[in-house]
């Protein structure tokens, strides 16, 4: 955590958040594994609190080509966006893997939008529901929306952010090696939600550690 916004969360709060994401994404990977019938490899998650400009830079450094994202808004005590992002070239491969690989290309292209939305829906819901349950809160999820563009498109969605707000940018890389599929899950929230999140994390830490909390 060398980012300038890091002081907004304590080291233990960042640790707790990273662990929540790790558990949430691991559950989501189990769902994806069922869908593609091949092992899904996950990276160690990274959580950074950055401004939007920096979040765009981080993603742009990793993936320069055209990207596809499945995007969902979550609302509740904390409000924000969750994105499943991968290179556009991999999206047909993902659909092929999920549909079983027997369909002709034209059918796959026709199915692409719907299959991406549904895959994103399952993965993001699985991840967010796990996190919400562990925080003892419920989150309302919007319908999935498929976006195409680059890091700037995804992190500049309307409504425009208030000046100086903070983006919680967490990413974890997932890969299905047999299928040459890989991508990221990212989450974005603003400063008021981040403040609410710190309280929820404190409660979570107290529940988890009991009398061992410092």
């Amino acid at each position, binding site marked *: 955590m060398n980012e300038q916004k890091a002081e907004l969360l304590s080291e233990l709060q960042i640790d707790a958040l990273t662990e929540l994401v790790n558990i949430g994404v691991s559950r989501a990977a189990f769902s994806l594994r069922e869908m593609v019938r091949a*092992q899904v490899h996950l990276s160690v998650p990274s959580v950074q609190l950055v401004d939007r400009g920096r979040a765009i830079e981080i993603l742009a450094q990793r993936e320069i080509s055209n990207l596809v994202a499945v995007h969902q808004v979550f609302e509740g005590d904390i409000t924000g966006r969750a994105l499943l992002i991968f290179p556009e070239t991999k999206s047909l491969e993902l659909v092929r893997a999920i549909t079983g690989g027997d369909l002709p290309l034209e059918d796959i292209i026709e199915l692409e939008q719907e299959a991406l939305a549904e895959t994103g829906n399952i993965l993001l819901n699985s991840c967010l529901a796990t996190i919400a349950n*562990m925080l003892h809160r419920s989150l309302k999820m919007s319908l999935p929306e498929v976006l195409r563009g680059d890091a700037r498109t995804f992190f500049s969605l309307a409504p425009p952010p208030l000046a100086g707000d903070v983006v919680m940018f967490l990413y974890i890389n997932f890969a299905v090696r047999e299928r040459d599929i890989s991508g990221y899950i990212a989450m974005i929230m603003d400063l008021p939600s981040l403040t609410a999140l710190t309280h929820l994390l404190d409660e979570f830490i107290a529940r988890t550690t009991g009398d061992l909390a410092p």
Partner: protein
Amino acid sequence: MTYRLLIVDDSKLARMAAAKAMRARYPDWNRVEASNADEALALANDGSFDVALVDFNMPGRDGLQLAADLRARSPSMPLAVVSANHQDEIVARAKAIGAAFLPKPLTEQSLSDFLQGALQQLQSAKP
């Protein structure tokens, strides 16, 4: 007889959660902690623990690689891999190493079931 449990996890919070679950059911046990595979292997060289609990998804070498190393050094030590990633391949690899698989978030019940089995194994191994 008190035993020593090694808890390996890159998350401090996860180590604290495991420690809490251990203390609830086995308050007389001691624990040692490591935040990565290298630290855990250094502790293994010192013979610092009797039972190991290893997180799967860690930076550097992952928990299955660490579990395999620990198994090679100590063929009969009770060992568990802990992860929310319960994909068949991960669970199967843990079993192949001879490690239990405990789902995250770790519950008092699942840890205590594992430790109970470990205790029986340790006690029956004594002369």
